């Protein structure tokens, strides 16, 4: 039984705890034990909070013993990308510059999970400051794909995808700025959602690119994604970019099926030189949906080719700005110097990894006086055009279906020497961030080498219900999502 336990969904586990089939404490202990056995080779966790988790589990068990409601996620083991501020629990953002920093507050999404009874097992590995697509910008420990330990899990929320893929948590939270939830979900064979910009509060999430960052869940089922989004989503007065709209019950409507839905397939996302296995898998998935009653049409998103360039102007500018605060004065690493300037240089020089430095330099350059109009401002205009492409498309279709990544998981070290090729790996996910739209990835098949391939579904603003409906229908029709990596059964 306990072997199956690690693959059960959050919805199932919450019901088991509620029905007293298992205590929250036992469920937590089983997961902690599994992490102790498996995570050494996987590197999903940067920090395991055994005492805290067991303490939270006891609170849930006591509530249930009193006959009280322990919350919609009562007893469910979850884990958080180390980008989320957790009160009393070290938060590094995957960087040496925050080594040992303990936040005095919980971010809003974290607080809402806790309030819903979820058990936070620990903090998850990631690319430093969420900058990366492979989790290789990770100074603390490497993170490996459970389907093939020689390969990357994707990034930047690598640890969040691995934890769910390897049964080390039921659901996890990540962030997605250019595809950092969707791409690792695709590479690790799990489901991942990037919500509409502003749907989930960014308060307490270490900022990378303020106009692009969004918090989202990983899960093994679309239903778990829906449950987690219900819990974490909604307006937050602490976040001025948070949307005031009410949070619907996302779990409703998951069984509606796709009959009558119009799905758009953009020409620009099926390019020459695309990995043939990825293309075949995604096209097969689309056929599956067509057979289930969806109407499939070709659309065009003509400004797609500008998306990566546009992103790397906007995101780096905002990142350079957001990372200015890491100066050794108030928190985190400080390397003393002869004077102030030296302290700044030594602290930031030692504390930041090469990719972070690269992006800070790019971003600083982009914002230089005299260049603002040519770069940042121009990129924002291109962004509006990309957004307009989608607005036009959503007049014709209800959702857009695409691959999530041009390739399956690549080997560790393969792209590290070529940052630009790493950047181009974001080609399918990045437009969605620029347009502020929601995107869901669900497992859609495997390569011959048994590496996962995901299907991406994009929707209009606040179109999560449609995405979840399509994803749930697909998971009803297929069993890709219940397959688990062999090495970690």
């Amino acid at each position, binding site marked *: 039984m306990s072997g199956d336990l690690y693959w059960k969904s959050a919805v199932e586990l919450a019901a088991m705890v509620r029905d007293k089939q298992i205590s929250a404490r036992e469920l937590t202990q089983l997961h902690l034990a599994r992490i102790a056995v498996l995570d050494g080779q996987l590197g999903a966790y940067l920090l395991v909070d055994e005492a805290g988790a067991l303490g939270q589990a006891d609170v849930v068990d006591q509530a249930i013993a009193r006959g009280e409601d322990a919350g919609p996620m009562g007893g469910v083991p979850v884990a958080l990308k180390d980008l989320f501020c957790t009160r009393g629990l070290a938060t590094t953002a995957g960087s040496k510059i925050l080594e040992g920093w303990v936040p005095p507050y919980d971010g809003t999404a974290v607080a809402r999970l806790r309030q819903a009874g979820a058990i936070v097992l620990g903090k998850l590995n990631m690319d430093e400051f969420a900058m990366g697509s492979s989790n290789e910008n990770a100074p603390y420990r490497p993170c490996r794909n459970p389907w093939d330990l020689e390969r990357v899990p994707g990034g930047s929320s690598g640890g969040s995808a691995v934890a769910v893929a390897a049964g080390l948590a039921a659901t996890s939270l990540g962030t997605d700025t250019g595809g950092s939830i969707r791409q690792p979900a695709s590479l690790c064979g799990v489901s991942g959602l990037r919500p509409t910009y502003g749907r989930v509060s960014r*308060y307490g999430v*270490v900022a990378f690119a303020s106009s692009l960052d969004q918090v989202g869940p990983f899960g093994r089922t679309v239903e778990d994604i829906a449950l987690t989004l219900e819990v974490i989503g909604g307006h937050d007065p602490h*976040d001025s*970019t948070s949307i005031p709209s009410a949070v619907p019950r996302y779990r409703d409507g998951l069984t509606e099926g796709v009959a009558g839905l119009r799905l758009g397939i953009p020409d620009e996302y099926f390019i020459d030189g695309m990995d043939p296995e990825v293309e075949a898998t995604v096209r097969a998935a689309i056929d599956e949906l067509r057979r289930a009653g969806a109407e499939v049409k070709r659309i065009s998103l003509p400004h797609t080719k500008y998306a990566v360039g546009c992103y790397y102007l906007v995101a780096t500018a905002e990142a350079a700005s957001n990372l200015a605060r890491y100066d050794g004065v108030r928190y985190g690493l400080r390397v003393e110097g002869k004077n102030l300037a030296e302290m700044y240089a030594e602290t930031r020089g030692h504390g930041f990894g090469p990719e972070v430095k690269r992006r800070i330099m790019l971003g*600083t350059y982009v914002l230089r*006086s005299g260049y603002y109009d040519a770069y940042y401002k121009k990129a924002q205009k291109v962004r509006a055009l990309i957004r307009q492409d989608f607005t036009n498309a959503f007049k014709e279709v209800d959702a857009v279906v695409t691959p999530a990544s041009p390739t399956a998981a690549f080997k560790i070290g393969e792209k590290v020497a070529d940052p630009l090729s790493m950047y181009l790996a974001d080609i399918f996910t990045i437009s969605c961030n620029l347009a502020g739209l929601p995107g869901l990835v669900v497992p859609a098949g495997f390569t011959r080498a048994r590496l996962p391939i995901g299907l991406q579904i994009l929707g209009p603003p606040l179109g999560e219900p449609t995405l979840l409906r399509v994803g749930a229908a697909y998971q009803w029709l297929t069993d890709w999502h219940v397959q688990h990596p062999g090495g970690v059964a």
Partner: protein
Amino acid sequence: MTWEVVIGLECHVQLGTLSKLFSPSPTEFGGAPNSHTDPPVLGLPGALPVLNERAIDLAVTLGLAVGATIRRRSRFARKHYFYPDLPKGYQISQYDEPLCEGGQIAGVRLTRIHVEEDAGKNLHHAGSPISLVDLNRAGVPLVEVVSEPDIRSAEEAAEYMRTLRQLVRWLGISDGNMEEGSLRCDANVSLRRVGEAAYGTRAELKNINSFKFVQKAIEFEIARQAAILDAGGKVVQETRLWDAERGSSHAMRSKEQAHDYRYFPDPDLPPLVVGEARIAELQRGLPELPSAMRERFVRQHGLFEADARGLTDERALALYFDAAVRAHGDGKKIANWVQSELLRELHRDGRTIDECPVAPERLAELVRLIDDGTISGKIAKEVFAKMYASGDSARVIVEREGLLQVTDSAAIEAACRAAVAANPKQAQQFRAGKAAMMGFFVGQVMKATGGKANPQLVNELLQRVLEEP
């Protein structure tokens, strides 16, 4: 060579809100270091700004009062530089879309007024290798008021500052205290030949922390630049710090001045939209402004300009005066009482006009008692002192202490005769031509009547009695 001086002033005014501009921490002055902080103030990872709308109300109020155009849609921008008192490594300010544009203060045109957050404070102890950072002030709301370079003398600059200070206090948006830093001033000063259209190279003066120094620092700078130019040299564009102790300024190291602030719109904050209804309400809520009230006092109450100025220095005083005149009717008489007796008493025990124990209507009543002869002017001063001390009304005090003026001619005449009879020598001197003796006899009659005799009658009757052979 006669040089024309061109001055522009950039002032920062701390807004008197309870909370900071982008977080709920208190703006209260003082407190243990770093006690008025929270994640946004400290610039902690993951913190986000949330606008305090009241600060915008105060800023718009100032904009309306100076006749500026209020932008219905403006933006916050990040201004980047590294310094320990700037927690985020950027200041949230406004750049190319400020809240207010145009307007004027003391006849000087304004370029703009924008909203921004204050930085914290660095404390350097002489001789110590350590600097301490206190972030209590970080995040406090400021408006930056930028004038056009219309000012042409150090006096004019000081007058501008005084007017600005009076205005922000008048509107209740700031306590405008230069010594405490709630009103700060940087001056841009340059010289050019009289009649020349182009501006000369300017120097920026900082660290001017009192009105006195506004004028002094600018005068020093004018002299410094004139000396350079007269000798055929060139003025260097630089920032200079005023040193109050030395009475001079010195240049900051130029490395510290090369700033590319890399402004861009803050993506954490939506555009600042100020609606018509809100502007209309703030406009309605504007009090009568100091200059308008001053003009009205001259026009309606017949005051001299100087007196009107003094009475409109503080709004509370102006309102007091206005109320007292409304209750009484004669501006000059009331002005006299307010400026002499009232202010002296308040000053003596360090009270503000708001703490004045004599209500304006009560003051008016006192003056009416003099008007109708119930008491003499001299007695009135005693009565006023008792009103101030006890809080009782004039009428009550006069009745209680029997201070009614004596106007009975017969009684006064009797007192006069008695005084003359008792002092034959002085009477002789008066009759011999020593007119000053009148004062002596008036004094005697006043003493005899407990000060209550009507002075005019005393004079008349003494005159008559003394003229009798």
